């Protein structure tokens, strides 16, 4: 039953994407790179939102929050607050600058090919790590719900993205993303509304998470109590060191504002004022999912504990068994009493006072956090078509993000490397052909990497944000707000910010510091170190620039020019 629904709904959405792609295919490099610069701000906002919200936002985030409680706020604020920085500090000025890519800006503002190449390498690295995660998400969704082998799932996903990204470029991708946004937001909110009505009898999840349960206790108070009873910390209170929460949130915000695939979206609108407002629309559309996610987290966490706590394994609901077969959920009866004991077995005082006297021999449930969103409708006994919808939504989120990233990769190769550096005499037709070939190659490599995913995907994503925060963000901000900033300042800032951040992350994620959080600098985890890297970059850049000669006059004029909106014109390659 679920499978029939899933095939139907996923099939319809895929036909929709292909139809949109054929209708909006690109004819010129301008259409291919920036959709001709003529996308309406509301549509651009939707496309940006779909581009931004990846398989991780859709499938993983709510699950992550449901296990972290208050500390999950770092993702909610971190992945939305960056849009304020984008709208106020970057988007309008970069749109006025009027070129195709972020390396374009870095290269011209700092009058240096070296700076451009550093930017291209960063852009490629960041985009590639991201895209691999998306392909993996596509494979997981297909294999769980369509009973297809994981590999076939990845291949189908690759084929779809290949088709519309190669054909349509930015134009095709933008309009497909609008359709994908509609699918994914509908798919995320509908189950949330259902569950909210079911649990607290309120149709708006954002309000429902604060409402009372039928027995009169407040849902959040109940969840706090359940958490404490199982030895976890109180759901609504922070647990991590405050400075780490602060730094991780900041690193994600600064990283968001420095990610090339987000910034490039603001090159696609006709005017400077459109760039400002489309950041607003994008955040509004993102906020719908990001304010629903914490509600889903609360519902899912409460439901999960109620379903499994002290329940006899023989009476477990069927969704539990079907997830067990995927290996993402596992029960091990450590004390052999046939009941499920799920509690915090890392909490010494709880073990001593509650677990041992009761004869519990460790928490018996292993749950992959990623399954919470997919399993949630099943846990709540929602109809089969809702579950099918969630699968289609997850695929929409993964495909839209993958397409946006692939475009950045192909633009970096055909425009930044080839057209601007290696073969400046290339014709537009050839450049467009190269762009299409490089996107095709990138899709295939990404598909292969998703088929054989390297370990540590999550660790690598932290890397991407940290590096974007420590490299691009200060270089862009200073390029606009500090007229005196010159090439030596910006480059030394970027290099030192990058080396500091990268070595810290490598040491604690892959090197000698693995499993030694007590060695953290000021209690800051590798996810948050980008914030310190950003500050280091900023200080180094300012000091060095003041000790060296000011930038050439035409660069200073360029800075003055991008500060006012008049005369933006269409984005151009020359």
């Amino acid at each position: 039953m679920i499978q029939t629904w899933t095939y139907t709904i996923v099939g319809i959405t895929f036909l929709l994407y292909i139809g949109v792609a054929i209708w909006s295919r690109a004819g010129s490099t301008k259409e291919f790179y920036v959709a001709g610069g003529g996308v309406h701000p509301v549509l651009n906002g939707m496309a940006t939102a779909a581009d931004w919200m990846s398989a991780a936002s859709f499938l993983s985030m709510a699950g992550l929050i449901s296990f972290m409680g208050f500390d999950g706020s770092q993702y909610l604020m971190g992945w939305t607050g960056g849009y304020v920085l984008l709208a106020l500090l970057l988007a309008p000025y970069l749109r006025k600058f009027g070129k195709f890519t972020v390396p374009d800006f870095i290269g011209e503002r700092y009058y240096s090919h070296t700076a451009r190449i550093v930017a291209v390498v960063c852009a490629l690295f960041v985009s590639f790590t991201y895209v691999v995660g998306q392909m993996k998400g596509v494979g997981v969704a297909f294999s769980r719900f369509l009973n297809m082998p994981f590999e076939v799932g990845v291949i189908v996903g690759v084929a779809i993205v290949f088709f519309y990204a190669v054909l349509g470029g930015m134009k095709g991708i933008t309009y497909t993303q609008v359709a994908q946004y509609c699918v994914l937001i509908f798919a995320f909110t509908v189950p949330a509304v259902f569950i909210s009505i079911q649990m607290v009898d309120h149709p708006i999840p954002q309000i429902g998470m604060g409402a009372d349960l039928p027995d009169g206790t407040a849902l959040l108070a109940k969840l706090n109590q359940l958490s404490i009873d199982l030895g976890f910390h109180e759901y609504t209170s922070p647990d991590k060191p405050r400075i780490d929460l602060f730094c991780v949130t900041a690193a994600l915000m600064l990283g968001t504002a420095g990610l090339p695939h987000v910034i490039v979206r603001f090159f696609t609108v006709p005017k400077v004022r459109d760039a400002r407002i489309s950041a607003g629309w994008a955040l509004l559309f993102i906020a719908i999912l990001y304010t629903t996610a914490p509600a889903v987290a609360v519902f899912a966490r409460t439901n999960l504990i109620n379903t499994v706590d002290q329940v006899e394994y023989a009476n477990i609901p069927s969704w539990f068994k079907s997830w067990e077969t995927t290996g993402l959920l596992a029960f091990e009866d450590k004390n052999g009493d046939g009941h499920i004991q799920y509690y915090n077995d890392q909490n010494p005082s709880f073990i001593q006072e509650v677990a041992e006297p009761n004869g519990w021999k460790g928490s018996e449930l292993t749950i992959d956090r990623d399954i919470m969103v997919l399993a949630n409708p099943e846990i709540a006994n929602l109809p089969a078509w809702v579950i099918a919808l969630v699968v289609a939504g997850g695929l929409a989120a993964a495909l839209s993000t993958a397409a946006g990233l692939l475009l950045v990769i192909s633009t970096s190769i055909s425009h930044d490397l080839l057209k601007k550096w290696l073969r400046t005499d290339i014709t537009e037709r050839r450049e467009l052909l190269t762009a299409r070939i490089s996107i095709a190659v990138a899709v295939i490599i990404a598909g292969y990497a998703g088929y054989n995913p390297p370990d540590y995907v999550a660790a690598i994503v932290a890397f991407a944000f940290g590096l974007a925060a420590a490299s691009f963000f200060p270089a862009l901000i200073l390029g606009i707000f500090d007229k005196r900033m010159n090439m030596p300042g910006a480059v030394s800032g970027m290099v030192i910010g990058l080396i500091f951040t990268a070595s810290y992350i490598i040491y604690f994620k892959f090197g000698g510091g693995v499993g030694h959080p007590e060695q953290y600098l000021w209690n800051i985890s590798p996810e948050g170190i980008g914030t310190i890297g950003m500050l280091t970059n900023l200080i180094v850049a300012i000091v060095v620039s003041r000790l060296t000669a000011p930038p050439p006059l035409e660069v200073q004029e360029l800075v003055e020019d991008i500060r006012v909106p008049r005369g933006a014109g269409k984005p151009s390659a020359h």
Partner: protein
Amino acid sequence: MDHSKKQYWQINLRYLIFLLAIWFFISYGCGILWADFFNEFQIAGFPLGFWFAQQGSIYVFVVLIFVYVILMNRLDKRFDLDE
């Protein structure tokens, strides 16, 4: 840079500082640094610090951008620098 453009830029910077101060105060202040203090208060079933961190700050972010857009569109017109 001629005088009116300079003045335009100064006002723009003032807007930025004002809006980013609110941005910082709500998210990092109410949502992180003083979350325990705000958690002592309840609003519509939420501990207030928790509400700021997982709901309120996001709403404020959206409002801040739209306020900035309105302020800047007006400023562009006033200085005759709009498109």
